[in-house]
């Protein structure tokens, strides 16, 4: 029994760690690939043994880190349903969404919408296959880096924001406890969340046996640009 509880205790944390790490890499890469920021602020780094692009802008990095830091408790408790990276045009209308659907211990998925494309990956893990998860995440990173083949070019002057879709009453507890002071979560505007005529394009699905409890399913969505 003790070993079970130990695993259970660890499991949420481990999953949250892995996911947040991955999300950080993914967000940086999305910003790079989708040209939200000039490519000059990005540098090559190594993650999962492959080169990825990471921004060097301290404030942007801080923002991403803070966001993920606040998100982590939610992921640990399995309260986060989706993490969405929204890319918006000048009028703050979403043009693209990368939706990371998280439903551990059974499912986690990632999506991106603008224009809707759909990546999926699923991984269940047992510790011998941690490297397999890494492989899946690597494959995912690769998918993000070539996703512009299925996405249309973004208009100039885009910005981005990160949305978290929580399950049930998690929002309330989130409002009460600020993980980082003065870095509160706010309810997203309707217009930020919804897009006109989204189109879903499946990009990637994968399944593995790594944590036996966790699955990742990622979907990026695309809809035609006018």
């Amino acid at each position, binding site marked *: 029994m003790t070993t079970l509880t130990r695993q259970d205790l660890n499991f949420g944390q481990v999953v949250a760690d892995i996911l947040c790490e991955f999300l950080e890499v993914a967000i940086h890469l999305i910003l790079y690939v989708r040209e939200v920021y000039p490519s000059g602020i990005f540098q090559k780094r190594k993650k999962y043994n492959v080169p990825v692009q990471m921004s060097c802008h301290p404030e942007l990095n801080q923002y991403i880190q803070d966001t993920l830091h606040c998100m982590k408790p939610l992921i640990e408790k399995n309260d986060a349903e989706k993490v969405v990276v929204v890319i918006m045009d000048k009028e703050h209308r979403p043009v693209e969404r990368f939706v990371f659907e998280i439903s551990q211990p059974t499912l986690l998925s990632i999506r991106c919408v603008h224009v809707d494309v759909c990546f999926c990956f699923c991984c269940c893990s047992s510790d011998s296959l941690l490297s397999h998860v890494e492989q899946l995440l690597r494959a995912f990173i*690769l998918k993000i880096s070539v996703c*512009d083949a299925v996405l249309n070019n973004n208009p100039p002057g885009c910005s981005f924001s990160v949305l978290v879709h929580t399950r049930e009453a998690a929002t309330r507890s989130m409002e009460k406890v600020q993980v980082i002071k003065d870095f509160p979560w706010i309810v997203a505007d309707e217009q930020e969340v919804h897009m006109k005529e989204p189109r879903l394009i499946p990009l990637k699905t994968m399944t593995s046996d790594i944590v036996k409890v966790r699955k990742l399913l990622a979907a990026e969505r695309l809809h035609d640009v006018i």
Partner: protein
Amino acid sequence: MDDLYLDNIDEFVNDHNKIVTYKWLSLTLGVHVNTAKQMLYHYLDHKRKESSAQVHATYLVSGKFVDNGQTGHRVSVVREDQLEDVKSRMSPIVSVHIYSVQKALLKDSGPLYSVDYDAVKDNLQNCSRYGAVRCSSAVPMSSLELQQARGARQALPPEPEQKKSSANTDTNVVSKPPSKPQKGIMGMFASKAAPKAQESSRDNKSEQEEAARVDPVQSKPARKPNPGANFFRVQTSKKPAEEKTSSSPPPAEQNLLPSKPQTKQEAAAVEAPKDAKRESRSKTKRVESDSEEDKTEKKKRRRIKKPDPDSSDEDVIPDSPPRMETRRLSPSPEKEIPPVTRSQCGNIEGKVRKRRRVLKSRAFIDDEGCIVTVKDYESESYSETEDDVQATRQAGKDPVPAKPAVSNKQEDKKGHKKSSANANKGAKQASIMGFFHKK
């Protein structure tokens, strides 16, 4: 074959939205690299004629390149729109061939590496199977040789490594020019070659460093030659080596990288075998250790992690064994007996005799459960005639010595339950009271 492979490639490129490099294709379809290049070329040609969907390609160009007065042999991977530009800047072009085909317009060279990474990793043992560079004298080592080599490696490493880096000077030279900023996309793609070359040169360096690093690590355990230590040595030595740098993944990459230029540089081929030999050795060493230790290491990491956050769990674990011990002890009361016998000695032996008598008679009546033992206490405290309950209360203090004595003699007759109960009582006096109260 004919058009079938065109469909294959089309599926990879368009349906899967994959970056198809010649290396990946050759490993996936099991064809020679040169065939793979031809396939890609034909596919691209075909697509261009159709001019249906947009397909992008990258090319590998190598040749003499003059940069800032320095002449060097450069191997670069360039996008096709930069191809002519790069070609025009190389005086003798040694080789031009297609490197990859993909739907997406690549912003940098990173994905090109990522694509090959897993394909190469899956075929680590024979990733050069379809390669153009051959070295018949480069034979993978047997596990026994491998072990010997590991031991010997401590003494060997720096020398061959240095030679190797000198053999790779071509690529090293190549790595220099890109360090100076280049224009636009060209810069990125030129830097594609650069990182590679840098990587390879870095690999050489890192290998030296690694060797240096590994040495102290290995030399430590080497002092303890016992097999147990050996076992740990493998893991400990691997761990730092793997964690510190890219040391483990690069070997896979590394042997491809140098070999790639070599395919184009016939001149360098003379040196190549040496490299290949050494690399293949060092590769095989690491390759095997990688595959083994990768997993074990990962397991290990998790194992290490577990105890840290769960200090509370650790508390739990120690808790349970003691309980087990008490239980184990109880059936074999020898350990508890000594104090008992002492107490017997200390106490009056006459009482003991009395007890015996009483016990025997009442044991037959109940024969099961703890009630019998309760009655024993009565006898000891001379309260044979009194109520059982009262006796138990009084007996609270005495029973410890008395009880085990009883258990001594009754052990053979009575069940394990009783004895275990005794053991518990032996361990904690206070709990005995509670125990009897309940009953």
